[in-house]
Structures are given as structure tokens and as C-alpha cells.
């Protein structure tokens, strides 16, 4: 029963979020700030994870190819497919749910318990629209760039480790990453990413916005935001993959 209450409240909140901003100038300014907070400040962690994951996938694949019948370019192919289809568009958003989601939830939750949201409401500001819409637009805008960067860095790291560790010649890796390449898969990945960006921000904002109590509840909201975001990312991933790729 409580699930339906949450779903209803979530959609009511979203109906308030997707309204015309009070002042477009302020909205654009806030959106740029969110792009910086959500995207630019996450560049380091995304780059680091992508580099290491690309390198590890390359080593793992090479280590598991023990048959001479399997061509070496399979390593490049596997690195590319893993990075494009799942690691960049799904695992990176899961990590971002932890970093960005908890931040959004605790920021809005703290504003709620310190009456800052009440202050906005009393002034006549649509607080949901003012606080949440720039975050959603900012995340939807910047996530695809982060994911493209993650794909590129992962594949590059795979190539580097493959050559440096003498796992395969660069030419074989190049053949692998070009083999049966379907640009549509990149489109599919970017679409997934946009959906996940929306899930992370909206779910986290929802938990923050309806925080009641004190500091302890802000922490709980933050944890719930991360957990529910990840669960919904997984469910959405399954649905989107089933609908688009099969």
C-alpha cells in the first residue's frame, strides 16, 4: 500500500517539477551550475573507473582465451562491446547514483528540514520546479558526454594494456574494435544513459524533498535514494534492453 503512496506522490512531485520556470535566466544559470556539479566534478572518478575497467576487461578476456582457434581480435571486440553496451551506460550511472544521488538527496533533504523549502513556498516559488528541474535537465545533458568519455577511455585503456602487457598486437585490437561495429548500439547506450540520469536525479530529489525530521532522516533519505535509484536503473536496463535490442 505504501508503494502506491510513494508512486502517487512521486508523480505529483514530477507534475510540479515540469512547469515553466519562474525566470528563464535563473533557470539557465542553475542548470549550468548543476552541469558542473553533476558532470564536470565527476569527470575524475568516471575517467579513473573507465580506464581500470577497460584494462581489466582486456586482461580477463586474454586470460580466458586458451584456444588457438579463437582469434586475438576477440579481445578488442569484447572490450568494445562490454564498454559500449554495459559498463559505460549502466555501471557508470550506478556509481553516479552513489555519488550524485546521495548528494542531491541530502542537499534537498537538508533544505527541507531547515525550512528553506518552506521559505521558497511561502514566497510563492514553485520549490519543486526551482530546485529539481535544473538538476534533471543538467544531468540529462551531461550524462551522455560522461558516458561517451567512459567508452573512449575504457577502449583506449584496453588497447594500451593489451600492447604494454604483450597480450595482443595493436593491429589485432584495432581489428577487434572495428569488427561488426553497429553504431545503433551506441545510440541504444546513450538512450539508456538519459533514462538512468532521469531516474537518479528524480528519485534522489523525491527522497530529499519529502524528508521529515532531522539529520538522521536526511541520512536515511540519502541511503534510500541510492538504493532505489540503483534498483530502478537495473529494472529499466532490463526493460530497455528487451525492448530495443531484441
Amino acid at each position, binding site marked *: 500500500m505504501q508503494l502506491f503512496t510513494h508512486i502517487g506522490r512521486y508523480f505529483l512531485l514530477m507534475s510540479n517539477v515540469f512547469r515553466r520556470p*519562474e*525566470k528563464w535566466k*535563473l533557470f539557465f544559470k542553475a542548470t549550468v551550475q548543476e552541469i558542473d556539479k553533476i558532470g564536470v566534478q565527476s569527470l575524475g572518478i568516471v575517467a579513473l573507473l573507465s580506464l581500470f575497467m577497460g584494462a581489466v576487461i582486456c586482461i580477463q578476456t586474454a586470460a580466458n582465451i586458451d584456444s588457438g582457434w579463437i582469434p586475438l581480435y576477440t579481445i578488442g571486440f569484447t572490450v568494445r562491446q562490454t564498454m559500449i553496451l554495459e559498463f559505460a551506460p549502466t555501471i557508470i550511472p550506478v556509481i553516479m547514483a552513489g555519488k550524485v544521488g546521495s548528494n542531491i538527496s541530502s542537499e534537498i533533504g537538508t533544505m527541507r528540514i*531547515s*525550512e*528553506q523549502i*518552506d*521559505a521558497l*513556498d*511561502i*514566497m*510563492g*516559488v514553485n520549490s519543486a520546479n526551482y530546485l529539481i528541474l535544473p538538476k534533471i535537465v543538467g544531468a540529462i545533458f551531461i550524462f551522455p558526454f560522461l558516458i561517451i568519455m567512459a567508452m573512449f577511455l575504457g577502449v583506449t585503456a584496453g588497447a594500451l594494456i593489451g600492447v604494454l602487457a604483450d597480450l595482443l598486437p595493436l593491429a589485432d585490437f584495432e581489428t577487434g574494435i572495428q569488427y561488426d561495429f553497429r553504431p545503433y548500439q551506441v545510440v541504444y547506450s546513450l538512450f539508456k544513459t538519459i533514462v538512468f540520469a532521469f531516474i537518479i536525479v528524480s528519485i534522489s530529489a523525491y527522497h530529499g524533498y519529502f524528508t521529515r525530521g532531522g539529520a538522521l532522516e536526511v541520512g536515511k533519505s540519502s541511503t534510500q535514494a541510492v538504493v532505489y535509484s540503483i534498483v530502478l536503473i537495473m529494472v529499466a536496463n532490463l526493460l530497455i534492453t528487451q525492448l530495443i535490442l531484441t
Partner: protein
Amino acid sequence: MIELKEVNKSFGSQHVLHDISIVFETGKVNFIIGRSGSGKSVMTKCIVGLLEVDTGEVLYAGRNFSAMSNRDRKEIRQEIGMLFQGSALFDSLTVEENVKFPLTLFSKMTAKEMTDRVNFCLERVQLEGSNKKFPSEISGGMQKRVGIARAIAMNPKYLFCDEPNSGLDPQTSIVIDTLIKEITYEFNMTTVVVSHDMNSVVEAGDRINFVNEGSIWWKGDKQEILRSSNQELNDFVYASEFMRVVKDNIK
């Protein structure tokens, strides 16, 4: 003038406000006093629209606020200033930006006019020169004063103050009380102060409403409150040793 007519509010089976009828007069500091849990905060939230009343009417100069849609309420909301218990300043904005915030959103002022208005409001609360500081860099009393400056920035007709003295030392409390009183008279506002601080009531109160168990138990002015024979009111007013000494002196 703000008028409440037979306002009721419940949370589930808990009936918090019972048939509240009350008038808050213009140009006066109207206090709502009462014990913790008596319903005064719920009443204030109903008046400003943070909570919806179950039955009854909240009238702002005759306009039925409680029956309006959110869109229609916007016009009245821009006539309301509110000072929150914890000041509720926006952490990420400077003092100047906090005061300027409602002007940026709702006024048609130029940048220069806005800056002048912000400086006027900050001077009015004796905070000139603090424009560039963040809320975390100023004291609790200064935060309250910034809260007042932000509340009066839009030149409101109605000012609400929720526990304006909580967490402040007695001297700073008097500064805040005096400020609330002065700006009420200066701008002819309808001011509603929620408090359980009797010093504030005596310092700034023009009209006092005592709330007990979700009902208005007593109304009057500060002279009357000290001489009232209402037992519940006396238990509240003279709970402290200090006020009992005051009572003895009155006798």
C-alpha cells in the same frame, strides 16, 4: 487584516485545531502564544498555506486564501514575509543574494534598484557591510536579522515570525523584538508572531492570543495578560520564577 473563521485541522484521528476564529489586526504585532504542542505552529502553517485547513476560512483582507488554487495564492504570497525559527536562509547564497532573492524572482526592478533595496533592508536591520558574507559566517542573531531583511524586501503587507527569539541571548532577543515592532509600525504591516517567550510578548506584543489544546483560550493585550484570572493562561505566563516576581510587583 488577516481573519480566521472556524478553522479546523486534523492529522488522521488527531484533531489539532478546533474552530479557530481570530482576527490579526493591521499595524499591530499580534502574538500567538501557547505551550509546545498546543497547535500554534500548525495554525501558522495553515494561515500561510503550508498546510491546508480541513474546514473554515483564512481571509487576507477579505480574500479567501484557503479556497484559492496555488496559482491564485501566488499574488497573496508575494505580500507575505516570513521569519523562520531557524532563519531558513539559503546556505549557498550570500547575505545580499538572500535578501535579493525574492526581488530577482518577482520584481521588475533593475539591478541598480535591487541593490539599493537590498542595501536599504540591510541598513534597516543594522547589517550594512555584511552583504558578501555567507549565512554560516554570521551569528544566530545576525541570521535572524537577515531573515527579517529578506522578509521585508518585497515590502510585504503581512509578516509572520515563527519563534523569532529561539536560540538567542536576552539582549539579542530584545533587538529582534524591537526590530519587529518598529518595522510593523513603520510599514503598517499585519504582523503575526508565534512565540512562547513571555519577555517577547511583554516587549513587543500589541494583541495576544493564547492557544491551548488547539483552541483560542484567551485574547487580549499585554496589560490584560498580566492581570488575567484565566488559570491555564496564568500557568503558562507565570511558569518561570522571573515572571512570578513580575506578578508580585504588579500586585
